């Protein structure tokens, strides 16, 4: 155990600060204020009567509430919102910000999540008043610039996917999957077929089967081979006339580009089923290969992965969906179109459309950021993204395999699987993940798609120095396991809290504050 006093020193256990819920936090020193112990809730700040913002005095006559509103509906008390002055509001959110890992501060090798740098310029573009302050019901003549931006983005995504039409409407990746399955269902129905099964490999994202369920389909799992690729025999055995689609992620979640993809497409199409691509891992193939060229009928993009829009602690995303020619009639409305005379418009005219999947016109502010990113990088920069993402992943893998078990053979795409084999020392992948936090690194995706694994995706925006540091840290943790496993098992030691009782949080949920 180290004995230095800097607050972020790895391995240091902070002094015990027992603070049961609801009681006043103890006095803190300045240095530790943001990062140790608990922090008051908004509802524990302020005093009755305080307000952080004011409005101009109303310049119209008061309307009589009792004659204009049913007395039964009129509030007799106000919602118990916080009553805090502006400075304390600012300090509150400043301190909460200090208690977060973020891509701006930390390396995030989070497999299948593509935590790349979010360029500052994209935020600036999104807040240009002429883009940020448009009302969705303004006329097309007032919004020509925005419509052209969205149309250009639509065309770029069509080119990247190799598919003839893309809709910008879906709100996120999972919403895109759902939209795509609705399109596929509508296509089969238009041919008088009611197919009920959707297949997906065991390594698929959880959203795949969950989206199937929303669409009333039965999710059927297809096995993967020991090398991480789809087991074609199992696929052949399971795909039949009742199969609506096979959902595949390629490169898949073990970081392997499944080179059987053309054969998979043939097997699926032979039974009249559709091949769907979960675009979560597009970061590995931009400008390298196109889903439309390897037999995909339908796919979604994750703008907040591939095109760098910020995660915001969980969202927003956007999930544009691209489709092959035969699925175009079923796309959701509205679609942004070019009128042929250089002007742009929304078009609702699509007789066989599945309808609307979201209000208004989609996650426009997110799409603006994606446009800015694609425009910045261009065809050359996008290809460079995938080349460097794949280079970084293979470099990390090469360095880590000297000491760790990488169960699937490379070369890898943009991510790879590592198994920390410390079970003999009683150290799990979760312990390793928590120890990484002490070294300022966000843990990789854990325990999925196979048991006891870490799924590592460095992304293209990281420097060699950061990658080398990660290798050093992983090796250091392996040393710690050998010398003093308890330091790993009890990690993290440097966060405001130690490991949390997640079981209690679900067994006896407390999901809102009560004074």
């Amino acid at each position, binding site marked *: 155990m180290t004995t230095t006093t800097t607050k972020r020193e790895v391995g240091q256990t902070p002094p015990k600060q027992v603070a049961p819920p609801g009681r006043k936090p103890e006095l803190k020193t300045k240095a530790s204020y943001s990062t140790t*112990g608990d922090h008051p809730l908004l509802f524990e700040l302020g005093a009755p009567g305080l307000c*952080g913002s004011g409005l101009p005095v109303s310049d119209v006559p008061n309307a009589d509430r009792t004659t204009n509103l049913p007395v039964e509906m009129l509030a007799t008390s106000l919602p118990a919102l*916080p009553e805090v002055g502006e400075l304390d509001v600012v300090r509150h959110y400043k301190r909460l910000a200090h208690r977060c890992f973020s891509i701006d501060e930390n390396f995030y090798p989070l497999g299948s999540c593509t935590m790349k740098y979010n360029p500052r310029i994209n935020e600036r*573009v999104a807040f240009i008043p002429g*883009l940020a302050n448009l009302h969705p019901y303004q006329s097309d003549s007032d919004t020509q610039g925005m419509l052209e931006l969205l149309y250009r983005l639509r065309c770029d995504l069509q080119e990247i996917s190799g598919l003839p039409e893309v809709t910008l409407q879906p709100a996120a990746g999972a919403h895109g999957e759902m939209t795509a399955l609705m399109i596929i269902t509508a296509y089969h129905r238009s041919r008088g077929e009611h197919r009920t099964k959707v297949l997906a490999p065991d390594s698929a994202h959880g959203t795949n089967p969950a989206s199937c369920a929303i669409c009333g389909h039965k999710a059927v799992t297809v096995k993967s081979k020991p090398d991480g690729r789809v087991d074609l025999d199992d696929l052949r055995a399971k795909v039949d006339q009742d199969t609506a689609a096979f959902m595949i992620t390629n490169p898949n979640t073990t970081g392997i580009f499944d080179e059987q993809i053309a054969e998979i497409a043939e097997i699926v199409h032979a039974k009249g089923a559709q091949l769907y691509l979960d675009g979560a891992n597009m970061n590995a193939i931009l400008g390298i290969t196109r889903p439309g060229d390897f037999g995909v009928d339908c796919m979604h993009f994750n703008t907040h992965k591939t095109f760098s829009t910020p*995660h915001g602690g*969980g969202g927003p995303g956007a999930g544009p969906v691209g489709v092959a020619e035969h699925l175009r009639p079923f796309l959701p409305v509205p679609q942004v179109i070019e009128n042929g005379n250089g002007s742009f418009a929304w078009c609702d005219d699509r007789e066989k459309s599945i309808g609307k999947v979201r209000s208004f016109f989609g996650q426009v502010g997110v799409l603006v950021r994606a446009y800015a990113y694609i425009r910045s990088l261009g065809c050359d920069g996008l290809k460079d993204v995938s080349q460097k993402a794949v280079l970084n992943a293979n470099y990390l893998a090469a360095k880590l395999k000297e000491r760790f078990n990488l169960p699937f053979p490379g*070369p890898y795409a943009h991510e790879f699987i590592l198994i920390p084999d410390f079970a003999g020392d009683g150290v799990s992948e979760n312990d390793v993940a928590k120890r990484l936090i002490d070294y300022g690194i966000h843990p990789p995706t854990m325990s999925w798609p196979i048991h006891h694994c870490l799924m590592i995706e460095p992304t293209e925006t990281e420097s060699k120095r950061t990658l080398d540091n990660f290798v050093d840290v992983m090796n250091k943790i392996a040393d710690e396991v050998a010398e003093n496993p308890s330091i790993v098992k009890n990690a993290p030691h440097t966060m405001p809290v130690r490991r949390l009782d997640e079981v209690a949080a679900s067994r006896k949920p407390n999901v809102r504050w009560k004074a």
Partner: protein
Amino acid sequence: MQYTQVTDAQVSEMLETIGAESIEELFSPIPDKLRTKGDLNIPKGVSELELLRDTESLAGRNHATGELISFLGGGAYDHFIPTVVDAMSGQSELLTAYTPYQAEASQGVLQLFYEFQTMICELTGMDVANASLYEGASAAAEATLMAINITRRKRVVIAETAHPDTVSVLRTYLAQQDVELATVQVGEDGCIDSQSLSAKLNGETAAVIVQSPNFFGCIERIDRLIPMIHEHGALAIVSTDPIASGLLKPPGTFDADIVVGEGQALGIPLQYGGPYLGLLAAKEKYLRKMPGRVVGMTNDLDGRRGFCLALQTREQHIKRERATSNICTNQGLLAMRASIYLATMGKQGIAAVATQCFDKSHYAATSIAELDGYELAFDAPFFKEFTVRTTKSVDKLLSVCRDSGILGGVALSRFAMGLDDCFMVAVTEKRSKQEIDALVEMLGAI
């Protein structure tokens, strides 16, 4: 512009470590016949300055609110956003944080979402709330799927006084399910016709979706409707405007089972329709059936207060096809904005916003109704938006207003609901008497 930061010399070094001759070799698993030959048909990359020129030029071809005085509503409103909201939500530690699966490294956003859930409970009058859904319409659809799951019934009723997008999105979702969707027409007064609703209810009804204030701005008598719905064992889903609870009793007061809403009014810029904020709150007994992420308070090993994602066994990454919803990415950043907005405005501020919306919309409505050729389309009470019927051409009068820099309202003709002689006017706290008078004067002069 490129955001990679590996030099050519480092590339060589890294390839040597890998044992590969070239980056190209790393792509060898992709069969040659599937490889893209040449460049994508996308322009080459540009510098930051060129990008700014491009996007500012596109923006310059738009005419946005701010430049124009907006009386547009219909589900998206020009409310005042305190500077603190942009400043604090723009902190990159919040902006670029990932979903808080690693609780110890995410206490800031977890606490923030816990506070958000609490404030949404307060605004809706409900026991529990989640940490956000996409937007108002899909939130209503998710609530409906939740109600079907709870009641095990296969029939749903929605009032056509709800936002047309809510009705459309619900129709899209339910087309996938073996569920019947019945609609209740708009009554003479702009509200749900309660007899027509009564006729649509039966023992098979899972839920009824009611929006109040409704699409036309009218306040529905949910105090009377909810008991009717409950009589048949159906769940009452109320879609609401969170700002309204600064003046009106929240839906929870009237025993609503699930409350959803569009949270855009809570500090979120118009952004041409999104990203906005889907709200969902419910009675405590339905907590485990809710879609989306939920944050809970718990303790760490030392007994310190802390926060983590709770009830994850409802979610897709654990339960897969048996999850309560397929949602993964939500609207975290927008929930943050709403939280900061509510913290800044506070109890008094929300009351002030609601009161000014009410006073100013009534001032505008009274003034417009006094003009020749204009009347209020509906008698029902309203909150911040109202519907005007006119003997004049709606398209013409809105275009005349627009030419003078005023977005006078939303023409109902765009929704094909047989109200082509009507338009809706929304008046938020941001509109001054002078601006309202200018609109009235212009309408009077046509």
